[in-house]
C-alpha cells in the first residue's frame, strides 16, 4: 500500500506552487505604457502645429483677408494650452502606469542577485546556495507582483472610463480638427499658387516651374503632417484599446494574457510614434 505523503511534506510544495502561479510578468504592460518618453517632444510639437498651420495659411491669403485670417489663428491658439494639458495628463498617467507595472520603481531583482555570493561564503554548498537564493527571489517576486497586480488593477479600474473619454477627445481634435486645418492650408496654398500660374505661366514659363516645385514641396509637407495626425489618432486608439483590454481582464491577468492583449499594441504604438517623430 502506497504511503500517504504527510501534510508537512505537501505544504511547502503547495506554497511554492501558489507563489509561482501567482507570478505575473508585467513587462508588456510596462512596454505598452512606455510612450511618454519618446512622445514627450513630438506630440506637443504636433499639437502646437494646430496654430502653426493656420499661421502658414495667412501668408497665402489675399492682402485684404490676411488680418481676418490672423485673428482666426489667434482664436485657435487659445485652445493650445488646453490640448497640451489634456495630453500631458494622459502621458503622466501612462508614465505612472509604466512605473507601477515594473522596471523603474523597484530594484529587488538586482539586489537579491548579490545574495548568492554572500551565501557561498557562509559554508553552504552550491546546491544549497542556489536553493536559498532562488527561494528568496521567488518570494520577493511573488510578494511584489501580488502587490503590484492589486494596485494596477485598482488604477486601471478607476480610470478606464476617463481614459476612453480623453483619448477619444484628443483623437478627434487631431485626427479631425487639425487635419481640417491642414486641408485649409493646402487649399490656401493651391489657391495662391494656381492663381499665379493661371495669370503668369504663359509669359513666364521658367518662373512657373519654380512655382510648381514650391507648390509640390508644400503639398508634400502637408501630406507628412496629415500622416502624422493619422498616426497620432492611432496612438490614442491603441491606448484606449489596450487600456480597455487590461480593464476587462483585470483580476485574471496572466503573463500569457498580457502578452496576447497588449503585446501587439506595443509594436503599433512604437511605429505610430516614429511616424509622428518623422514629421515633427
Amino acid at each position, binding site marked *: 500500500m502506497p504511503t500517504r505523503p504527510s501534510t508537512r511534506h505537501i505544504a511547502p510544495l503547495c506554497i511554492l506552487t501558489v507563489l509561482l502561479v501567482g507570478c505575473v510578468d508585467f513587462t508588456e504592460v510596462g512596454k505598452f505604457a512606455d510612450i511618454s518618453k519618446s512622445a514627450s517632444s513630438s506630440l506637443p510639437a504636433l499639437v502646437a502645429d494646430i496654430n502653426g498651420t493656420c499661421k502658414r495659411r495667412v501668408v497665402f491669403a489675399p492682402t485684404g483677408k490676411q488680418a481676418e485670417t490672423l485673428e482666426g489663428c489667434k482664436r485657435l491658439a487659445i*485652445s493650445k494650452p488646453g490640448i497640451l494639458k489634456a495630453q500631458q495628463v494622459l502621458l503622466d498617467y501612462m508614465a505612472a502606469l509604466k*512605473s507601477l507595472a515594473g522596471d523603474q520603481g523597484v530594484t529587488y531583482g538586482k539586489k537579491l542577485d548579490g545574495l548568492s555570493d554572500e*551565501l557561498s561564503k557562509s559554508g*553552504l554548498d552550491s546546491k544549497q546556495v542556489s536553493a536559498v537564493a532562488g527561494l*528568496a527571489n521567488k518570494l520577493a517576486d511573488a510578494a511584489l507582483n501580488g502587490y503590484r497586480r492589486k494596485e494596477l488593477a485598482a488604477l486601471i479600474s478607476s480610470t478606464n472610463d*476617463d481614459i476612453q473619454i480623453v483619448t477619444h477627445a484628443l483623437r478627434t481634435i487631431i485626427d479631425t480638427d487639425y487635419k481640417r486645418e491642414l486641408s485649409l492650408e493646402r*487649399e490656401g496654398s493651391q489657391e495662391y499658387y494656381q492663381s499665379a500660374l*493661371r495669370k503668369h505661366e504663359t509669359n513666364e514659363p521658367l518662373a512657373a516651374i519654380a512655382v510648381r516645385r514650391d507648390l509640390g514641396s508644400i503639398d508634400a509637407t502637408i501630406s507628412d503632417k496629415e500622416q502624422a495626425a493619422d498616426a497620432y489618432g492611432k496612438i490614442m486608439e491603441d491606448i484606449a484599446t489596450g487600456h480597455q483590454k487590461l480593464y476587462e481582464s483585470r483580476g485574471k491577468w496572466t503573463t500569457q494574457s498580457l502578452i496576447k492583449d497588449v503585446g501587439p499594441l506595443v509594436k503599433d504604438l512604437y511605429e505610430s510614434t516614429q511616424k509622428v517623430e518623422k514629421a515633427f
Partner: protein
Amino acid sequence: MGKLTADQARDLANQFHDLSVAVGNYRFDHWDDFTSAKRDQLEDLQWTLMNYSSDFTSQAISLTLSDLQGTLDHIQRTTKKAQQVIKTIKTVDKVIRIAAAATVLAAAIMTGNAEAAIKAAEDTYEQATS
C-alpha cells in the same frame, strides 16, 4: 438659438470647409469665363468661408476641452495616488530585501560557522539600512 455643441461646431466647420473648396474649384473651372474683378470677389468669398470653417474648429476644440475638464481632474488625482503607491512599492521592496537577507542569516547560523554568521549579520544590517 442655443449654444452649439462640440459636434455641431465640428459639423459646421466641415460644411464651411467643403463650401470653400467648392467655391475654389468653381473659380478655377471657370477661370476664363470670369473677369479679374469677379475672380477676386470669388477668392475673397472662398477665404471668408475658410475662415468661418477655422472659427468653428476653434469653437469645437474649445467646447471639447471644456467638457473634458472634470475627466482630466479625475485622472490627475488618480495619477497622484498611483505615484504614491509607487513610493510605497519601494518601501515594500526594502522590507522584502530585509526578509530575504534574514533568510541568508538563518542559513549561515545553521551551518555553525561563526565567522560567516557574523558576516551575514553585517550584510543583513547593510541590506536593511541601504
